[in-house]
């Protein structure tokens, strides 16, 4: 017996429902703010103003968003192939190694526009290789990708710590990081774009990687919905049995999808390393890989949604930092709570309000929920 599952118009599915989820998340977060004795409305104002109120805020928001676009795309590509890549964090971290090698080798000789493509290739290649091993184990040995990618996060972290306190650290330095890159490995800022709109920016790390992220979002869309490879990935993601039936090699598709995912994760490292800090430091990823999971889920695995969700999380990061500064009662951890609530309502409880909205739509306009299609028409 089949339960009819009415479908909603696309704008409600992709616009209204995420907005409602977001709203509820903020309402609940408001109660938490109330609980620590602050005014939730004022907190919301500070948060939004901190993220979008000034040119500097916008630039920071977009800088964080850049990072999340990469990790979100990485998670989404794997998810379209039915694979849960929790290893984005480690793949991005270890990709820092590839970038370090390129930058430390060429920053004194090449201009940034030659170093950058080399670093993109190195970052993507190292990230992809780091994803290859769990992918191979999944495809050939059936080792669950969730478990192996988590373990590879720890391995990546350990390797990076070893390298950053040892071989990669300048001899006299006490900081666990590489030497600072020279001008040849520093990416140009994009702050002038925001300044075009009349906003003032003191100093913010928004850089050309943001454009790379947008290009990648487009390429991921092209890959998933317009190429044969994407078609095969989606087939496998929805039904491994159907993929087998269609003659799609399980080994090949798992490894390919994971390497693309790992490559995208690796590119994330470009943003903080070459665009902001100009060195590779310990823990520079700082959880962005895991935020990518939330971004991908909230963006419904669609590049447009992912870009929007990444900007939302960028806002939470930037506005959250302002909030912690302005309201001492709200600590950095409180921001994590708010982010957690967003993830909870937008990700885990994504469908909580769906039945009600469907009923609402059905009662107002039966046609809009595809009644014709759902009603089983005898042939």
């Amino acid at each position: 017996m089949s339960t009819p599952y009415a479908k909603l118009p696309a704008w409600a599915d992709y616009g209204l429902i995420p907005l409602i989820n977001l709203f509820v998340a903020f309402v609940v977060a408001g109660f938490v703010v109330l609980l620590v004795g602050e005014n939730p409305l004022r907190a919301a104002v500070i948060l939004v103003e901190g993220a979008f109120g000034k040119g500097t805020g916008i630039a920071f928001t977009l800088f964080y968003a850049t990072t999340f676009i990469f990790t979100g795309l990485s998670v989404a590509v794997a998810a379209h192939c039915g694979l849960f890549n929790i290893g984005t964090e480690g793949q991005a971290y270890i990709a820092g190694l590839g970038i370090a090698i390129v930058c430390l080798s060429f920053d004194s000789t090449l201009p940034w526009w030659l170093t950058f493509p080399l670093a993109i290739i190195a970052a993507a290649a190292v990230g992809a290789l780091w994803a290859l091993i769990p992918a191979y184990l999944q495809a050939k040995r059936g080792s669950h990708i969730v478990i192996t990618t988590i373990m590879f996060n720890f391995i990546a972290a350990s390797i990076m710590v070893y390298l950053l306190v040892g071989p990669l650290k300048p001899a006299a330095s006490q900081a666990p990081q590489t030497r600072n890159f020279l001008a040849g490995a520093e990416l140009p800022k994009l702050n002038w774009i925001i300044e075009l709109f009349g906003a003032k920016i003191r100093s913010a790390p928004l850089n050309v990687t943001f454009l790379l992220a947008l290009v990648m979002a487009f390429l991921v869309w092209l890959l998933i919905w317009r190429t044969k490879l994407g078609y095969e990935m989606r087939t496998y993601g929805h039904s491994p049995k159907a993929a087998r039936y269609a003659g799609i090699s399980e080994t090949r598709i798992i490894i390919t999808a994971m390497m693309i995912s790992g490559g995208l994760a690796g590119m994330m490292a470009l943003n903080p390393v070459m665009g902001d800090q100009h060195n590779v430091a310990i823990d520079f990823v700082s959880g962005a890989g895991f935020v990518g999971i939330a971004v991908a889920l909230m963006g419904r695995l669609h590049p447009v949604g992912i870009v929007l969700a990444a900007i939302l999380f960028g806002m939470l990061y930037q506005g959250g930092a302002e909030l912690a500064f302005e309201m001492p009662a709200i600590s950095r951890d409180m921001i994590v709570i708010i982010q957690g609530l967003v993830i909870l309502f937008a990700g885990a409880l994504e469908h909580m309000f769906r039945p009600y909205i469907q009923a609402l739509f059905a009662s107002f306009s039966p046609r809009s929920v595809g009644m014709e299609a759902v009603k089983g028409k005898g042939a």
Partner: protein
Amino acid sequence: MAQAAIELIGINKSFGAVRANRDINLEIGRGTIHGIVGENGAGKSTLMSILYGFYQADSGEIRVGGQPASIKTPNDAIALGIGMVHQHFMLVDNFTVLENVILGAESDALLKKSIAKARSELERLEREYGLEVDPDAIIEELPVGLQQRVEILKALYRGAEILILDEPTGVLTPAEADHLFRILRQLKDQGKTVVLITHKLREIMAITDTVSVMRQGTMVATRETAKTTVEELAELMVGRRVLLRVEKGEAAAGAVKLAVKNLTVRDTRGVTMVDDISFDIRAGEIVGIAGVAGNGQSELLEAISGIRRAVSGSVMLDGKPIDLTGAADPGELRDRGLAHVPEDRHHVGLVLAFEENENSILGYHDDPRYLRGPFLNIDAIRNDAKDKITKYDIRPADCRLKTANFSGGNQQKIVLAREMEQDPGVLIVGQPTRGVDVGAIEFIHKRLIAMRDQGKAVLVVSVELDEIRSLSDRILVMFAGRIVGERGPEATEGELGLLMAGIEHQEAAE
């Protein structure tokens, strides 16, 4: 009619915008066997789920034994003496029969007392209704027919006076089905009321006293079984005249297209499911494989289509060998002209989350017609899908619609259109009309015959004996992984039924 056991008055039920039941009125006489027929999606299961308390009607009244009843949960239904035997059994596989029977009806914190009570009760039921089952047998070791009997016992143990059976014969051999019918008649003789939901019209004719027909959520007619015919019921179900028997000419069998020799296939647990099977299919004939579900037909299909690796055996396609034990994959077989309509279209033959046009290239997505370099040629794919939609009368005619939103019959047509339009030399089809409505069955059968008449070799595997008999030019019967007999299309149901049950019947063979 006898006094009513159940009356349904003006029942309405909608899911979102879909009206699954509208203004249903139904009266079921006490001590009768009442059949409810209708196509998939006609609302039979919804109606029974309302009666059993899974769903609540939006409006309408239920009366049990003349008294208005409020049935909010299955427990309310049980308290009113209504029992249900589901299509998919609700049994705990590693429990004994007794443990399953008392599950949810334990009378005490300790099981000992309940079990003792159940044991004596089961003995009584066995005496009264001929429901023989070893109370200490483990469920997973029982054949399907006996498992179903446990479901009936469960309902009777809970004091059911009214028993609803949902598609009870789908998994049974003809002999097991006959036994079930004997039990149902005995129940009726003891004054119980039986409601039988089915889409098999012959069963309705064989066992029911009255029959009600549903179509698109409405109750279109109620008839006394003795005063109606299969043809009339089919017409009522579909809303127009249908051909139940496929018309076809003599087969003109040509050269051997597919030769299977000594094929052996094991399932994932290592159990031999196909045991040293050999057969040929010639161009221009339909070979049907009959058998009760689970006797190796699925594994045979999977092996021949390259989905599952065979253990040993050799297969020749158009006179050239294919290595089913190793290298061959479904893509290669497709390239060599073997098309496959799988048994499980929901998980294998289709990706339900895809748009219709995306499914219409599944397996043929390597074809340069659908590609532009590494990119999909979206226009070509959609135009191709639209052509197939027109040619196979797939409804709704929208190639951008999600496949899950098509009815079972139309989903099957999507698969058939894809496979048949590739003009394969060999077409193998698993369960061509499972879950497909009567109107589409006729269409699918005609198409299969047309393929045969174009000189294709067609292999059909089906658990519907009627279908095998009306389509096939030769019938192979599978039992326990072996082919236990070959018959012509004139073979009687009884003869095939005995073969399907693994009983060698010498007289029938001669």
